[in-house]
């Protein structure tokens, strides 16, 4: 890759992700509205599209207040870590064969998981440095939840990796030329998707931010753009999971007739919509239910998936 093209791809990805994160807030509010038989925000600009800009302006111009009792450097760094971790993960996503920052990286998936691991720090540091009991409780929940679900997420992917024989995401997409992994790896796909929701602590697994019990969870004390970074990181994370699912299970850019980018965007978009539909439809479980579900259901399922995939591959190789 020539260097200028690399820069264009990097910048394009970064700003693309930012735009998608911002617009998905809008998308979420409109869709929630539709699911609830109301129009959603429709006052600012055509179809309410400028609502995003209005929200951004509001967010930027809010007082940036750091609580006097907070641990200031950590308080400051926490949202940046989270935001960067999500952003950097996107480097691995192969949007099209030609548009990808590092889709060919041979440890691509491991990189993504590494970044997701770092994201936990953002949450735990944010909650801890706020010196606020709600924030700390939220951070504790988030940490336990994210670390647990990262396990199932990783395990559920092993089937895909084994089948494709590569950690590079572009290789995985290439491996789905004939059949999307969602069909042979259906169990893994479901587990990965559920774990992805928990990982981004989206509803119904938003216990770290459960507003009716914890204020706003780990970012209770955050305001203005620092809060904005948490906020963007959440929506960017949602987009990341949608992109990952697209790439890992839905054949990424592959599809007939239409150009690859359209296929990728359409698949990711539908997944985003599904995220939002889940938010509308499902109530929040209790925290112990969430953990029990993870360890008692998802873990065995993903192990089973790995086992079966491995057995099939070995049998096929033997045959």
């Amino acid at each position, binding site marked *: 890759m020539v260097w200028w093209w690399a820069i264009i791809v990097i910048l394009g990805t970064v700003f693309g992700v930012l735009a998608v994160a911002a617009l998905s807030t809008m998308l979420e509010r409109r*869709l929630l*509205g539709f699911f609830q*038989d*109301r129009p959603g925000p429709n006052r600012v600009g055509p179809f309410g599209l400028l609502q995003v800009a209005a929200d951004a302006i509001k967010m930027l111009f809010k007082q940036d207040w750091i609580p006097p009792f907070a641990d200031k450097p950590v308080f400051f760094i926490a949202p940046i870590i989270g935001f960067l971790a999500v952003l950097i993960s996107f480097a691995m996503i192969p949007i099209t064969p030609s548009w990808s920052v590092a889709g060919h990286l041979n440890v691509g998936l491991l990189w993504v998981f590494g970044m997701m691991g770092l994201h936990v720090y953002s949450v735990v540091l944010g909650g801890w440095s706020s010196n606020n009991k709600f924030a700390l409780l939220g951070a504790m929940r988030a940490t336990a939840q994210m670390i647990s679900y990262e396990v199932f997420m990783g395990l559920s992917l092993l089937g895909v990796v084994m089948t494709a024989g590569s950690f590079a995401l572009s290789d995985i997409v290439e491996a789905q030329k004939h059949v999307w992994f969602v069909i042979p790896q259906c169990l893994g796909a479901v587990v990965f998707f559920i774990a992805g929701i928990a990982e981004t602590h989206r509803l119904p697994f938003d216990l770290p931010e459960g507003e009716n019990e914890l204020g706003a969870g780990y970012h209770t004390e955050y305001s203005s753009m620092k809060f904005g970074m948490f906020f963007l990181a959440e929506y960017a994370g949602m987009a990341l999971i949608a992109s990952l699912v697209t790439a890992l299970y839905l054949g990424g850019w592959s599809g007939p007739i239409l150009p690859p980018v359209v296929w990728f965007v359409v698949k990711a978009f539908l997944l985003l919509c599904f995220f939002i*539909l889940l938010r*509308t*439809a*499902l109530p929040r479980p209790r925290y112990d239910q969430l953990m029990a579900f993870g360890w008692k259901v998802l873990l065995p399922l993903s192990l089973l998936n790995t086992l079966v995939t491995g057995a099939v591959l070995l049998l096929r190789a033997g045959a």
Partner: protein
Amino acid sequence: MLGIIRTIWLSFLHLFHKNVTVQYPEVKPYLSPRYRGRIVLTRDPNGEERCVACNLCAAACPVDCISLQKGEREGRWYPEFFQINFSRCIFCGFCEEACPTYAIQLTPDFEMSEYVRQNLVYEKKDLLISGPGKVPGYSFYNISGLAIPGKDKGEAEHEAPPVDTHSLMP
């Protein structure tokens, strides 16, 4: 499990339902005459103030936002001032329910926002309308025992003429 999927499916179907939101202010919603909005003071069929300053609305008000002072003009009681602090009012309608003369009534008007809170304090001149509101025919003094100009003792409904205390008739 099926329940969860069904829930998701039903929620999804709502995508294709009609919106129930009315696009206020472009579209004005229909409000029933019994809607509890802006409070008014009405007049009786003769055009006199119906309010007799009995203070029951003020007493019934759970947020204590009504204040008035009784005055008297030729036997008729009336409020010298009648203040409603709409910045406190919760439009519960208890005042209307308590009013023995149908003077205070809630109307289907809710468009009374102000940028300055002080402007939400309504005086009698802001409250008093020129009609009888929801109860056209009623006049309190027609059934009360007080004598007012134009209605002497014994001239109200179901009243006998004043007693002649000198009479010895059984």
